[in-house]
Structure formats: C-alpha cells, structure tokens
C-alpha cells in the first residue's frame, strides 16, 4: 500500500510507511527499526504503539508520521489493543465485509514490553493472535527521562538507578524477555539488531508469514540515555552483537537457530566503553561488575549454542 503523496510531502517520503517529520531525537534507533520493519511488509499494516518515545514523537496532532493505520491506546496495552483490531479483522473477514489482507504489528519500548505491558503481551501471545510484536529495546524508560526498566543492563547509570557513593548503578541483570516469550510456545521469537538490517528484515518477513503470534526483540540505540554520540548508533549496536551482549538468534517452532555468529568475539568492555552510562564501571572499585557481566554473557552464549545444537 502506497497512498498518494500530497504535494507538500517530500520526495524522500514516497513509498514510506513511516515518514519524516517525526520528532524523535537525532540518531534515534527506534526510527531506524520501524523504517526497516515496515520495509519488510508488503500488505496493508495496522500498527499499535505503546505510549513512549516512538508514539509521542510520531503522532503529534494534527499530523502523523504513519502512512499505515495506527492506533495508540495507552502505555501497557499495545498487545491487547492490537488483539482487538486483529479480532475485528477476523470478524469482518468471516462475515465477508472485508477482502484485503492485513498485517498487524505492535511496537513497544522495553517499558511497554518487559514491564508495564508484560501482562497484556503475555495474554496476547498465549491467545494466539496473528500479530507481530516488536520491542524496540533501548534498555530504560527514555521517554520520561532515562529511568531503569527490567531491560536495563546491570551496572547502567539511570535516573532511578543512579551511580552514588554507595550503589554503583543498576544492581540486577536484565530480564530475558525473548526467552520468556519463547516459553509461551509461540511459533516465532527472535532477537535482532538494526545494524544487521538484512537479518532484521528477514526475521520480520518470517514473523509476518507464519500464522499466529511472533515476537522480535530489537536493540535500539538511545544516544541520550546511553550517552553516546548521535552518529555512532549503528557502530555501538554492531559491537553489542560482536561482544555477544546481544546475540542474534531465532526460535522457530521451538528450534533455536543462531542467525549471526561474530567472526571474532570481542570482550564485553568494548560494548560498555563508548557509553557514558557505563563510565563508572571502569573505575577500579567497580571492575568486578564488568567481570560479572562478562561471565553472564558467556553463560548465556554457551546456553544458546547448546540450544541451537551447536555444542
């Protein structure tokens, strides 16, 4: 679907389901993810977006950056809302009141996915709605000013897990939402990165093609929250994969498959180093946190290799 573009619209927008003029930050990863996800879909789309950066920056009345149908309901219910739309579609189709094929995609940040929207997401996945839920995981509540979420990495400095004289940032390791979604026995779950955009688009195509619910967790750089240069977002996203902090894999009908194996595995420091939110970890007294992080990353990778039958 490519709606007619009016004269005031600019050439770069032709054929785009997500257009310019959104008010996301310079160098925001969420926009890169949405752009690439929608590029991988060739039917009309209905997106449901959880409250968050993406939503408030892309749908500022009276203008919308969405060329496809879009609904925002609240923070915690993107999946439940899309359940309703997808069910409406089935109802209308059953009654012969609609012919067109539609694809249903929900976007939520890590807050709207891992935390406040978790129940709604879990319910929608369990019920088996034919939808793709995409988490743009920037690892904290960025929209409200960088508060920790259950996706925030251990040791990260956020405004509600600040580095202080007693506590060196977030204490807990992040929740593994991809595994939790896989445990719902949905037909497709995956982890992806916008740097590896071909891999991302391939996963989206698979997720759309299968019948039933799919979940893709995509690492989304936030220059402001991560305290990195706006221009470096894709490099950092790439390092996350190369250090195995963010392994790229998929679980298709229960079968694990690692979709990208770094040629040379880098130490986790290289992922932490360029980010201001981890700066304090490089002080002598906090070095053990890096060690713990490295161990966790190793353990999870070993587990992934085993599950994928590669070890």
């Amino acid at each position, binding site marked *: 679907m490519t709606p007619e573009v009016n004269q005031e619209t600019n050439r770069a927008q032709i054929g785009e389901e997500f257009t310019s003029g959104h*008010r996301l*930050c310079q160098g925001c990863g969420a926009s890169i993810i949405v752009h690439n996800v929608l590029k991988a879909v060739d039917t009309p789309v209905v997106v449901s977006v959880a409250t968050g950066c993406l939503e408030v920056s892309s749908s*500022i009345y009276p203008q919308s950056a969405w060329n496809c149908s879009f609904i925002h309901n609240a923070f915690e219910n993107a999946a439940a809302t899309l359940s309703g739309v997808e069910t409406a579609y089935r109802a209308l189709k059953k009654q012969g009141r609609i012919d067109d094929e539609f694809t249903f995609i929900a976007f939520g940040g890590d807050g709207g996915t891992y935390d406040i929207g978790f129940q709604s997401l879990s319910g929608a996945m369990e019920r088996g709605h034919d939808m793709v839920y995409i988490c743009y995981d920037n690892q904290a509540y960025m929209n409200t000013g960088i508060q920790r979420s259950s996706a925030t990495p251990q040791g990260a400095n956020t405004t509600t897990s600040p580095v202080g004289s007693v506590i060196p940032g977030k204490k807990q390791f992040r929740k593994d939402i991809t595994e939790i979604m896989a445990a719902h026995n949905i037909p497709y779950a995956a982890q992806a990165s916008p740097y590896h955009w071909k891999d991302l688009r391939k996963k989206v195509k698979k997720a759309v093609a299968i019948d039933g619910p799919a979940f893709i967790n995509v690492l989304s750089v936030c220059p*402001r929250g991560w305290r990195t240069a*706006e221009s470096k977002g894709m490099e950092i996203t790439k390092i996350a994969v190369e250090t195995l902090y963010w392994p790229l894999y998929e679980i298709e009908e229960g079968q694990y498959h690692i979709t990208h194996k770094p040629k040379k595995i880098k130490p986790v420091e290289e992922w932490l180093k360029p980010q201001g939110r981890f700066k304090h970890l490089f002080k002598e007294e906090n070095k053990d946190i890096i060690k713990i992080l490295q161990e966790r990353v190793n353990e999870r990778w070993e587990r992934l290799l085993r599950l994928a039958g590669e070890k």
Partner: protein
Amino acid sequence: MLEIRWHGRGGQGSKTASILLAKIASATGKHIQAFPEYGPERMGAPVLAYTRISDGPIHLHCQVETPDLVVVLDPTLIGTVDITQNLKKGGNLIINSDYEPDKIRDKLGLAADVNTYTIDANTISEEEIGRIFPNTPMLGAINRVVNLMDQDSFLNQAREELKKKFSHKPEVIEGNMRSIDMAYREVKGLNG
C-alpha cells in the same frame, strides 16, 4: 519584573541555564520563576525556556508573552526560529555568536530599538571549560546587560550553585567561573 525567554536546542541545557540564573537571583533575595516549555520535541529540536526575576512576589502562572530579554544559546537557531517574536520595544537580545551585533541586526532586519548584544560563548567555554557548553558564560553576559546585581555577588552566588551540581569536580566549577567572568567583560554591543 524582568521576563526572559531562552532559545536553545533540546538536550543542550537551556532549561538548566534558565533555572541557574533564577537560583542565583533567588539567593540574593529576589523573587523568581523558571520553567521550560514542555513539548514533544526531542534532542536537537529548537526549544524554549523562561525566567522571571522580580523584586516583589510573582503571582503570574502563564507563559511569558512579551519578554524584556531574549537569550539565544545556539547560533544555528538564528534564521530558523523567530527569536525576536514579541520582544518588548526597547528590549534586549543576547546571542551566542562570534559576529558583531551590527551584522546580526542587519541580517535579521531588527528595529533600531532592539538592543542587540553578542558574546562568543562557544569559544569561551571551549577554552575555559574544555568543551562547548555556552550556558554558563551566557549568564555573565546577561548580568552585564541587565545588571541584576554587582558582578562579585553574581559570581559568589554562581559559585554556590555550581558547587551543588559539581561537588566532585572542582575543576569544572573553576572553568565555569572563569567563563562567566570573561563573558561579563567581553559582551559586544554595549554602547550600540
């Protein structure tokens, strides 16, 4: 009452500057207000903040409609946003720029009664603080132009405020102090 409108970019600290100036004034017994305009704009977008400073209590809780002073923190905003909109007749305009005030006045087609001042706060902060952070030097320029208080008192209060923010980094405080004082002395356009 002095009403100030600040022009900056999201993420560059115009809100911080608007508050810092208010706090310095507050510490000397003035009545103050400082507030940003909350919009959906993100990092890099042109944003606004406001400061009110008065000898008596401030009861207003509405936006600043006609500022006495406009402060432009980012020179790249000139020509992209209407920085002199509703500036009071005979009001002051302080711009962070290495240009002469006359050139700015010509380029923007400003009325003769807009008192235009420039200060190269980027260079000052780069030299004194070590990075481009023009907000604090702008404070010195503001005090020079509107004469909120004598410069020694201003510096003393600024130091107290900076201490709260940078208690672990005394070198940052000193750099900021030098840049405020330098900007106070180097404002261009004072007799123009």
